[in-house]
C-alpha cells in the first residue's frame, strides 16, 4: 500500500488539525464536497477555523455541520444563500464573512497554488469588493489587484484516485477541487473509488498526485440540493 493511503477520514486528518487553522473545502453547493473529511473535522472538535469554500453547505449537511458545532470563525465564500444557521451566526456576530466574486475566489486559490502572490482582474472594479484595494489601468481599462489564497489544509473530493494521489473528477463535481488541491500546505483527498496505479490514463488525470499528500476511499451520500426534472413525453 502506498504511503499516501489512509484507512479512513479520521486517520487521514490525524496530526493535521489544530485550532484556528485555515481550511479550504472543495465543492459547489453540495456537489463534489468532501463529506467524510468534513464529518471527521466535526468529530475532532477543532475550533476557530477559517474555512475557504465557495458555499457553506446547507443546514445539517456539508459545511453546515461545522456551523452547528460553532467550529467555524470565518468563511471566505462567494454565496451562502442556502443556510439559515449561517445567517443567524453572522448577524449575531459569531461568524466572520468575507465575500469574494466566484471567479476571483477561484483565481486567488489557483494563484496560491501556482506561486503568484497577486494578479489584476476587472471583476469588482467600482464595487464594494474593490474598496481599499489597489486599482491600475492597463490598455485604458481599470483593474483591481487581488492576492493569493493558501491554506494549512485543503480537503477535496474526487471520483477516482490512485494510490499515488492522481485524481479524476466527475462532471460538475470538479468545480473548486483541483485548485484547492494545489493551494493546501497539506491536501487530503477522498474518492469514491481508490484504484491501483496504472488504472487511470495519464492523459485523463485532472489533479496530479504531487498535490495530494493523503488519500482515502469513502462512501458518499451525494445529496441533491435542487432536484429538477422534466416529464417524459
Amino acid at each position, binding site marked *: 500500500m502506498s504511503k499516501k493511503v489512509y484507512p479512513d477520514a479520521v486517520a487521514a486528518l490525524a496530526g493535521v488539525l489544530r485550532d484556528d487553522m485555515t481550511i479550504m473545502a472543495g465543492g459547489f453547493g453540495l456537489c463534489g464536497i468532501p463529506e467524510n473529511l468534513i464529518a471527521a473535522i466535526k468529530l475532532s472538535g477543532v475550533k476557530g477555523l477559517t474555512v475557504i469554500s465557495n458555499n457553506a453547505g446547507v443546514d445539517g449537511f456539508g459545511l453546515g455541520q461545522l456551523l452547528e458545532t460553532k467550529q467555524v470563525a470565518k468563511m471566505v465564500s462567494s454565496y451562502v444563500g442556502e443556510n439559515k444557521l449561517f445567517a443567524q451566526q453572522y448577524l449575531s456576530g459569531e461568524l466572520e464573512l468575507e465575500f469574494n466574486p466566484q471567479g476571483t475566489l477561484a483565481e486567488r486559490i489557483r494563484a496560491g497554488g501556482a506561486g503568484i502572490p497577486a494578479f489584476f482582474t476587472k471583476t469588482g472594479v467600482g464595487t464594494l469588493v474593490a474598496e481599499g484595494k489597489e486599482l491600475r489601468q492597463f490598455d485604458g481599462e481599470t483593474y483591481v489587484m487581488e492576492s493569493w489564497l493558501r491554506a494549512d489544509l485543503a480537503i477535496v473530493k474526487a471520483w477516482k484516485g490512485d494510490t499515488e494521489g492522481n485524481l479524476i473528477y466527475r462532471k460538475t463535481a470538479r468545480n473548486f477541487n483541483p485548485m484547492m488541491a494545489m493551494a493546501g500546505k497539506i491536501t487530503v483527498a477522498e474518492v469514491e473509488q481508490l484504484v491501483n496505479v496504472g488504472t487511470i490514463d495519464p492523459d485523463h488525470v485532472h489533479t496530479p498526485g504531487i498535490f495530494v499528500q493523503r488519500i482515502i476511499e469513502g462512501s458518499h451520500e451525494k445529496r441533491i440540493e435542487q432536484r*429538477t426534472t422534466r416529464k417524459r413525453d
Partner: protein
Amino acid sequence: MAWTRDEMAARAAKELRDGFYVNLGIGIPTLVANYIPAGMHVTLQSENGMLGMGPFPFEGEEDADLINAGKQTITELPYSSYFSSADSFAMIRGGHIDLSVLGAMQVAANGDLANWMIPGKMVKGMGGAMDLVAGVKKVVVVMEHCAVDKKTGALEPKLLKACNLPLTGTRVVDLVVTDLGVFSIDKHGHGKPTLIELAPGVTLEEIKSKTEAEFDVAESLFAA
C-alpha cells in the same frame, strides 16, 4: 399589455446568434433557453464548470454530480465539456462568452448594475455575477420594470439615474428587457438609454412615468 415572463425571455432570446456561447442567470434568464430558434446552435455555459448544458433530466435520472450554477440537476449533451471553476472563470473573465442574460434589482442610465445586495438585509453573496458582468462580451438584463414596495404597494422604478444599491459592476449593461419595453444602453459613452421597443399596449407615457432615468426614444417607435 405588459410582457409576461416568458415573453420577456423570448425577447432576450432575440439577442442570440448562431454559434454563440451564452451564460444564463437564475430566474427569467433561465427561460431564455426555451426560445433558442430552431436550427440556431447556441452553447450554454454554466459557471460551475460546464459548456453544453442540457435540459433537466427525466425523473429518476438525476445525477448529483451534474448540476448548474443554480444547483439544479441538469443533463449533458454530445458536445459538452467539464472544467474547473478556475478554468470556467478564465473563460468568463477572458471575454470568451458572447452573451450573458441576468436579472437585476437596479440598472442605471450609464449601465451600472446592482443585483446582489440590499444593505441591512441578510446578504447571500454575489456568486459569479460580478465576474460575468465584467467579462462577458454583451450583458442583457431581464427584469420587471418596477419593484413593488411590499408594505405600501407603491411602484419603485428600477431603471434609474444612478443605482442606490451596492453595485455588481459599473458600465456593464448593454440592453435592458423589462415587462414594458426594451432599452439599449450607451455603456461606453455619455448618451442616455434609448427605448427601442414597447410591449404591446404600453404607452410612452406609461413607461416614462415608471422610469426614473431619462431616456431617448428610437425613431422606429414613432414610426410605429
